[in-house]
């Protein structure tokens, strides 16, 4: 209830705007108000919101409303484009040194995810870029912080420099640098203790490390759940250190992550990576356009498309497509399709990526998953012959299948009806396609 997407918010207003040919100050007022609330609820900083809403207003006023789109959609598009603009039009990656070790220093508040992200980065560089990586345990303050990094290092088979807690972090960083040169490491990732930006002693320590090792990249960790104060934190870190980028952590939660936008806008520090889960591979390159969608609650179409492309076995897809076109689609194909969808990961995660779908609760998603498993069980309990020619399934066969999958005959009837429906709509599609009314796939 608290976090409707901007599109939902617009739904009511848009009706009033129907038939208006241009966006004007007066017909946009309510929409701008909604934009403002949506952004504030997404934790975008107050000052940034103010500036942003004014920008959108200027851009939008006087724009002609195309006949095909509603004025609401027009405004959403303008807002989206502006957000992308603010977030930085390009994505940017880590800069690697050519002939010497690349030093990456992690910093941030307590609990922002420095150690976990250090591990994820190490894994990424090792696996995808075949770099020789050294992790440096520089958090000597929090109990067992070093153990945490050592454990992660073991998991991903990356060496961890552990000099205990009695040496100062500056000394540790120096030693790490020596080691990196001696043993020819490509990348050195220095983990540091979490600290408050107003803790002068500890901030000085970071400055000393920076001075000593001259890192290629200084990355600030920002929690996706951060509120209005995130800009103060980032600004102070940026004043004291030469930040080269941000990593936003915990974006697998349902926080909108508006702080990212504010920080990028007010400090100019680009977001380089985002953390999307607790597993060691859950780190992604940052895409401004996707973040814009997330802040607006619009779902993430591009991510969806990419995910689908990665996971779906293309040959398999083509095979069912041809069969479908010939009207030969059978239960085997239905099962295969289902398994492909399963392979895409949790249904919930997928649905969330589709705009207009955010209302589906986790509970409903779980239900859908259960339903899907049932369907699979039923089809798996049929003979090959039955799957190819479902029309032969009569009462006694139904009884047998029901026993086999632990459900009853009504469930089987439901599935068969569903299948008939699917087949029918596919036939219609195929005739459209053959008569040239549909684009080629």
């Amino acid at each position, binding site marked *: 209830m*608290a*976090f409707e997407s901007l599109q939902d918010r617009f739904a009511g207003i848009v009706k009033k705007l129907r038939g208006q040919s241009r966006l004007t100050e007066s017909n946009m007022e309510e929409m701008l108000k909604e934009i403002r*609330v949506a952004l*504030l*609820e*997404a*934790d975008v*900083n*107050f000052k940034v919101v103010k500036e942003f809403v004014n920008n959108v207003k200027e851009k939008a006023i006087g724009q002609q409303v195309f006949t095909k789109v509603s004025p609401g959609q027009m405004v959403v598009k303008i807002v989206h484009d502006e957000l992308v603009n603010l977030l930085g039009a390009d994505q940017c990656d880590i800069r690697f040194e050519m002939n010497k070790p690349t030093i990456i220093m992690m910093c941030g*508040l*307590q*609990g*922002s*995810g420095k150690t976990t992200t250090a591990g994820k980065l190490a894994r990424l560089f090792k696996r995808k870029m075949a770099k020789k990586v050294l992790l440096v345990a520089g958090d000597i*303050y*929090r*109990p*067992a*912080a*070093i*153990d*945490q*990094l*050592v*454990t*992660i290092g073991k*998991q991903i088979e990356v060496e961890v420099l552990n000099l205990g807690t009695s040496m100062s972090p500056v000394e540790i960083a120096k030693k790490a640098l020596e080691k990196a040169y001696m043993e020819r490491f490509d990348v050195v990732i220095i983990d540091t203790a979490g600290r*408050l*930006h*107003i803790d002068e002693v500890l901030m000085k320590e970071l400055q000393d490390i920076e001075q000593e090792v001259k890192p290629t990249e200084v990355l600030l960790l920002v*929690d*996706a*759940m*951060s*509120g*209005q*104060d*995130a800009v*103060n*934190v980032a600004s102070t870190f940026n004043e004291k250190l030469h930040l080269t980028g941000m990593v936003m*952590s*915990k974006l*697998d*939660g*349902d*926080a*909108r992550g*508006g*702080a990212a936008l504010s920080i990028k806008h007010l400090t100019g520090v680009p977001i380089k990576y985002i953390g999307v889960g*607790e597993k060691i591979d859950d780190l992604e390159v940052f895409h401004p356009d996707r973040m814009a969608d997330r802040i607006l609650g619009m779902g993430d179409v591009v991510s969806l498309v990419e995910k689908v492309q990665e996971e779906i076995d293309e040959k398999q897809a083509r095979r069912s497509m041809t069969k479908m076109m010939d009207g030969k689609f059978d239960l085997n194909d239905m099962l295969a399709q289902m398994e492909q969808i399963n392979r895409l990961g949790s249904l*919930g995660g997928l649905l969330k990526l589709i705009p207009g779908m955010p209302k589906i609760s*986790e*509970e409903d*998603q*779980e239900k859908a998953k259960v339903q899907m498993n049932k369907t699979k069980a039923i089809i798996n309990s049929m003979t090959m012959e039955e799957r190819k020619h479902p029309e032969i399934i009569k009462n006694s066969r139904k009884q047998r299948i029901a026993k086999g999958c632990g459900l009853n005959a009504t469930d089987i009837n439901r599935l068969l009806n569903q299948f008939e429906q699917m087949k029918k709509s596919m036939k219609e599609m195929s005739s459209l396609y053959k008569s040239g009314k549909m684009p080629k796939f």
Partner: protein
Amino acid sequence: MGLFKLLKEKIVGKSTVQKDKYVAGLDKSRRNFSSRLKALASRYSKVDDDYFDELEQILIEADVGVNLALEIVDATKKDVRVKGISNPDEINEMLVDKMFVSYAQQGDDIQNEIKFASDGPTVLLVVGVNGVGKTTTIAKLAKRYIDQKKKVLLVAGDTFRAGAQEQLMVWSKRLGCEIVAGKENQDPSSVAYDGIKRGKEINADLIIVDTAGRLQNKVNLMAELSKMKRVIQKEIPLAPHDTFLIIDATTGQNGVIQAKAFKECTDVTGVVITKMDGTSKGGIILAIRDELGIPVRFIGLGERMDDLEEFDLDQYLYGLCLGGEE
């Protein structure tokens, strides 16, 4: 403006160590907020719409949330009109009154200390998202009750994050209290079960169960928490006697969703707000109280073991809004 003066008298009269620390800890966060309120009052000789707009901004920037901020400002506006007040100073006092009353009315009387069972061990379950300071807060709470001569047992229920078990073990050694730990990736429910059993054996007064940080939209992880609770109840039917949700002061509007989700699966009885020694105002606790009625019980003001205080609404609002006067 009676209430505000009352507040102040109450606090000034309370010349405890606690107050000084509170004020010192909150110093950075309140300085900002209160000086802005005062600057606002001095810039405006009379009250107009711009004044209220700025008031709204100050509240929103404290993470109070758009809805609650608008509510407070609208109510203040209405009062101002009815009572014909034009002096900005008086309005600021009224604002604090409003926040106080709205918080106090949202639920029953608040007891900050853990509610000890009359018989047998009392169980405290500690939950929250990742990185908010659960383990550190547990150490602080353990210290607090050890100082009160209670026999405390820690249960390291975070079997997921690397180093979490070790972290709590270090604390238990420093505090000199017993700990039940599990193995890496062991089912946390079974660790909890072992912990509760051990607690009964040694006749502990307080068993504090740590849990792994989890984001509230992960259905399976939230179900795991419910399971932990059920397993604990098998051994001690009335447990957990208290469930604390730890919230980081820097948390934005997601805090309300967090509180809601955790409340649904573990029946949260209180919030502990951590990292209040930074510049964040922690206004989200007001929104949480407003929407869900969950009270704040303790407040974390630093990294040392003693840096945990009982939450006191008077002092919080006083520190946040009007503290910088003396």
